[in-house]
């Protein structure tokens, strides 16, 4: 039986309430941490666990914590990034609405470890109903003495504030999120200084994803080594995967890192296979920004070995033949999917969401959207494919924040692996623009 760290109790009726969550062992990690561990010891366990940032970047969480500056007399902040907006990703939404106390408990432990007395949960504004759920959970925890002044008689004080966003993908980028939390436009900041030194209100700040913070209760209860024993190599622990698209069982699944991609797609325990009568064409494995892979390359590495659901295996082969685990937004496409249309759709998304600060991103995303639009609608030119590659290359690495890269990768990878399909649209515009028309040329479907 696979270990469930986050979702073990998720189907228990009433788990959203304090009492039921408590009965399932909730808040024992807070008691253990506060009564038997120093903040440094909590940080040490998180380091040992090897847990990596679950928002998409995959940076080791314990290391991020250890970078936090601690000047005397200056407040430090923990900010939870619950701005989940990466297309294909809906795990944090699911976790917060079903088991809100898991995040609240993780926030208390993490705030204690970092020495923060006021911590924020920044939730995308569209999830206002989830904000109400979290606020209710916070009020319950406070009434039971797990938040507020002098928690469990330790002398430690903590307030949690749930902050709504206003509808902007860019605020998932940590410095844009901090700007937004300060009541400004979500324009990412230049780094350095990093938030660990100058973050919220110019004070030392750690920004962590919901899922990352939610793991800390289990790590405190079972120890960092027990966490690190799950998974493979540097991909320790479990990961929530948001599965969508043409599969039999879309939803959020907690997997032990290391499951073969093939099993994840076809086993009944997870996606349950491609919808009846259809075949696998392509997968975007880690949210819309990671490179799309055709069926053969998502299932197997270039050398023929099975690809696994780990950070390393998914990125094996670099961008030539690999992709990234990213946020775990796993979008599955069967043979009815038009890669050109999907790429145009994603390009439109990034154009819409570009904050406009950096010209390569502001202008480049618009160019890519326009060129892809004309290819999709039968007005493409032969040189457009190379033009797209060129624009993508000129955005990548030339912007303040990673939105530019995130916009460039889907376009570059779609052309890398599905160039024939783009060419077909350009050379057969009449056929390609028929309703429901999809390229049926030579390609490996599984």
């Amino acid at each position, binding site marked *: 039986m696979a270990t469930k760290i986050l979702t073990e109790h998720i189907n228990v009726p009433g788990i959203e309430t304090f009492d039921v969550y408590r009965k399932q062992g909730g808040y024992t990690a807070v008691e253990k941490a506060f009564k038997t561990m120093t903040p440094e010891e909590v940080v040490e366990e998180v380091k040992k666990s090897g847990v990596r940032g679950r928002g998409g970047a995959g940076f080791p969480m314990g290391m991020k914590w250890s970078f936090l500056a601690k000047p005397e007399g200056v407040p430090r902040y923990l900010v939870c990034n619950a701005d989940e907006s990466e*297309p294909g*990703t809906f795990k944090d939404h699911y976790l917060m609405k079903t088991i809100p106390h898991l995040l609240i408990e993780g926030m208390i432990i993490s705030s204690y470890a970092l020495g923060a007395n006021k911590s924020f949960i920044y939730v995308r504004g569209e999830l206002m109903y989830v904000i109400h759920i979290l606020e209710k959970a916070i009020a319950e925890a406070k009434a039971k003495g797990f938040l507020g002044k002098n928690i469990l008689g330790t002398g430690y004080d903590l307030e949690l*504030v749930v902050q709504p966003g206003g*509808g902007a993908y860019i605020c998932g980028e940590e410095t844009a999120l901090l700007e937004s*939390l300060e*009541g400004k436009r979500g324009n990412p900041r230049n780094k350095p200084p990093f938030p660990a030194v100058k973050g919220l209100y110019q004070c030392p700040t750690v920004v962590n994803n919901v899922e990352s913070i939610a793991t800390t209760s289990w790590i405190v209860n079972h120890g960092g080594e027990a966490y690190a024993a799950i998974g493979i190599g540097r991909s320790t622990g479990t990961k929530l995967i948001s599965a969508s698209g043409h599969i039999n069982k879309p939803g959020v699944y907690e997997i032990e890192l290391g499951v073969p991609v093939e099993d994840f797609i076809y086993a009944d325990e997870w996606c349950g296979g491609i919808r009846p009568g259809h075949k696998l064409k392509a997968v975007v494995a880690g949210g819309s920004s990671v490179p799309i892979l055709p069926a053969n390359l998502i299932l197997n590495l270039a050398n023929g070995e099975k690809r696994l659901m780990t950070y390393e295996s998914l990125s094996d082969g670099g961008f030539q033949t690999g992709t990234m685990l990213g946020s775990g937004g796993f979008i599955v496409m069967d043979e009815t999917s038009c890669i050109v249309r*999907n790429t145009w759709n*994603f390009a439109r*998304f990034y154009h819409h969401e570009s904050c406009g600060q950096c010209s390569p991103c502001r202008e480049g995303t618009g160019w890519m959207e326009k060129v892809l639009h004309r290819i999709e609608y039968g007005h493409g030119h032969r040189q457009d494919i190379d033009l797209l590659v060129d624009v993508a290359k000129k955005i990548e690495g030339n912007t303040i924040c990673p939105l530019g890269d995130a916009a460039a990768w889907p376009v570059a990878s779609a052309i890398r692996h599905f160039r024939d399909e783009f060419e077909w649209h350009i050379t057969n515009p009449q056929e390609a623009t028929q309703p429901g028309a999809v390229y049926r040329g030579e390609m490996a479907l599984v």
Partner: protein
Amino acid sequence: MTTESNNSVQFTPDRLAKAQEIIARYPEGKQKSALLPLLHLLQEQEGWTSTEGMDYIARMLNIQPIEVYEVATFYTMYHIKPVGKHVIEYCRTGPCCLMGGEEVYAHLKQRLGIDTGQTTVDGRFTLKEVECLAACGMGPVFQIREKYYMNLTNERVDEIIDELSK
């Protein structure tokens, strides 16, 4: 600067209390952090975010009106033009489209007799396209205020519109 007499928009007493609670939760001198939550609170009350409303929030937070305008126009959730009673915010992003989102959207537009950005003549519905709502496994999806409507089909859309038209 706006004139002090411009008091056409203000919070109801219970929302004013809520607004003060929100403002108080940030550290001393960091009250501008309340801007996004207060704009949500005002829009919840008024249905949209008017210039008068933004000026009111600016006075409340003791900041310049431009600091509110630049924020309200940056984020997509604030309706800076009047909208209908129900604003349908329809997800147009990839994963929903894979599940037939575009076809259902065409049906919705036909059913309401309006295009994206428009409001029905009776003022009941406004249609907006939005990007990913983080519900991709339950697509197609749209949102009206706080409520998510998921796994949409043409039939389901008809039921929802019928229900909201009563």
